[in-house]
């Protein structure tokens, strides 16, 4: 039964936005450790205050789409770039065979891979080929990452690294956050402590149910990237067909877990039209 549902989900949601089915990516922890034994009956989801009936709750059936948006601007030059590449390669290597990866490398220009792919070698080559260049188009790159992450069915993680503030984007913060609210992609950010104006990444992470990790050094970037990937793998995917709510507009989401001391992190809502 479950595999059939997943197939339908794949066909129905390929580069599209939720119309009939709403998917919510949820991190549930207790004592900071992900909880792994939850089922549909443990969750309570309200869409604009209306209790919904869940079709699915799980974390191990759906392949992951993992997009890395990596800051290759002038400020990353030198050792941090080498560590960033190493971390990127490690994440690509850690993907399972059914998972797909994508890259968005950015300086002033934004260079996204054309599509999500299970062919890691292509992505490894791309990661090694890009030189540091120019300023930081973080918002443009984040938007490109959202589009890439939305291009295939599955659960999509956009893992963004930057060591600086956006200095060159054309798109505005509001436009990109709006796009995020209309997608299913979860944004995780990794920023160095010296990075300025991290509000954008924090806002978009919050809007998508993700989080931002602030690091003091890039020396263990690989370990940090892998830990975030592992955390993402252990998030639950919930899905339901909305009932009792208007289709268009902003939908406020409220996700609860009926277990003591459970902490839930999920997007606060989603936008339809």
């Amino acid at each position, binding site marked *: 039964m479950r595999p059939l549902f997943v197939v339908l989900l794949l066909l129905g949601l390929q580069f599209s936005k939720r119309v009939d089915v709403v998917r919510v990516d949820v991190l549930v922890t207790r004592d900071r450790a992900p909880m792994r034994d939850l089922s549909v009956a443990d969750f309570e989801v309200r869409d604009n205050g209306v209790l919904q009936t869940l079709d699915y709750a799980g974390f191990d059936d759906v392949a992951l789409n993992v997009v890395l948006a990596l800051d290759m601007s002038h400020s990353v030059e030198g050792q941090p770039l080498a560590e960033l590449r190493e971390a990127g390669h490690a994440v690509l290597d850690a993907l399972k065979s059914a998972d797909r990866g994508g890259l968005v490398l950015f300086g002033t*220009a*934004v260079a*996204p891979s*054309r599509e999500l792919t299970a062919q890691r070698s292509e992505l490894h080559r791309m990661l090694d080929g890009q030189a540091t260049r120019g*300023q930081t188009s973080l918002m443009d790159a984040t938007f*490109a990452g959202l*589009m890439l992450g939305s291009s295939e069915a599955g659960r999509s993680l956009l893992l963004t690294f930057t060591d600086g503030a956006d200095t*060159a984007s054309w798109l505005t913060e509001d436009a990109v956050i709006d796009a995020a609210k209309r997608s299913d992609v979860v944004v995780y950010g990794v920023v160095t402590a010296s990075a300025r*104006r991290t509000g954008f990444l924090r806002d978009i992470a919050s809007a998508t149910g993700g989080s931002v990790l602030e690091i003091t050094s890039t020396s263990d970037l690989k370990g940090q990237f892998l830990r975030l990937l592992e955390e993402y793998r252990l998030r639950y995917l919930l899905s339901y067909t909305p009932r009792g709510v208007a289709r268009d507009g902003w939908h406020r989401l409220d996700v609860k877990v009926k277990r003591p001391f459970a902490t839930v992190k999920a997007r606060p809502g989603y936008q339809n039209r």
Partner: protein
Amino acid sequence: MGLRSTLAILLAVIVPIAQGQPARPIKGYEKLQAWARSVHEHTPGQWDDPARAVAALSLQDYREMLADLVALKKLLADRGGRFRRYDWPVPPGSKPRTEFRELHLDEVPAILGLPEDPRLRRERTDFDLAVSQLRSGITRFMKVAAVLEADVAIFAPPRLDVSEGFRRPDGVQHYIMKAADGSALGNDAAPIHWTLGSAALDLVAPSPAKDEFVRLWYRATVAHQEQRRQYGYARPHLGHALEVLPDDPYLHFYSGVMLENIAAPPVQVTIESLAESRFYSPGGSAKASLTNAEAALRRALALDPTLAMARLRLGRVVGLRGRHDEAARVLRGVLTSLTRDVDRYYAHLFLGAEEQSLNRLQAAQAAYREAAALFPNAQSPLLSLSQLAWQQDDPAVARTAFLALADLMRVSPAPYDPWWDYDIAPVADAPELLAQVRLLGSKEREQLR
């Protein structure tokens, strides 16, 4: 008859010096004399030995020369004055702390390497005429000097020993900071050569404000500074330029461009990074800079309503200030006046953003498509078209625009988006303007010989 005899007398005086006799040394003015020799010997536009000699000036040399030039300006403004007594900028920590010196009018030609004139020494009826002729010589000399100083400022390699703070009239120690990608990289050299160039042109007679060379020099040098994104230099330089030429539309336009750029993230992020140290920036907040940018652009357009690039900039600034309807009106209106593709690209791109802000999504899409048609390898219109389609719940169109964006990175040569150079696009003609200034400087230099 009177005029002819005057010319004859003048020639009689000039000839021996014009033949190349070295100027007699004037005690206390050796540095200014050495500088004057460089002015005479420098070939405009070249990084030659005279330019190198001037580039080696220390901050103390600069302070002394600036004091000399200011004193000379005051002396020339003092009708009938034979000398000027003025404060001498002793090096910090010197004793005594203050010194005075006197600049005598009859020694000025020897200091600057100009023809000496005995009429400047005596109580004679033709003293005023001699001063008038001296002013003409000084005017020519100072124009050549300004070209030299601009060349040194442009060509000289950075010198850390002149990067120390310099005190401006507001009493605050100022530093010029270098920055890249929003991060401060350290001090840059104090703008001594731009200041000396300006100080030289302050001596142009009858008035710098009425002199076309001065106007061109300021336009060219400000354009150069803005093209190099040297706002730390451009801000005080433009400030002085506008004191001299308050009704120049281009200088107001450049001022508007500079302020719009100061309000933009690359500068604001750097300012924020400095705020945590003991530095503060007099550059102002983004909001204040945009307010001032709008005022400067409006002033430029009041002086020259045909300045289409100023209107384009005004449209964007008004939009950034939240007046989207007005911005869209201005941008639509300016489209027919813009001649360069790059400016029409900006107008369409900005118009698209304003239409989107006004929720006129079809008009926004049309504007973005116009921009994309002008520069098919530019990523910004594609990003907007994708984002707009996503907003309209049209994932297929969003995907098409995204794929076009992804494909851009596979074309050769590398894609170019004029948006990346929006900040310097209005001053793309800076090299041509500088070439014109140098050509005029060369002609003035020939006249000095």
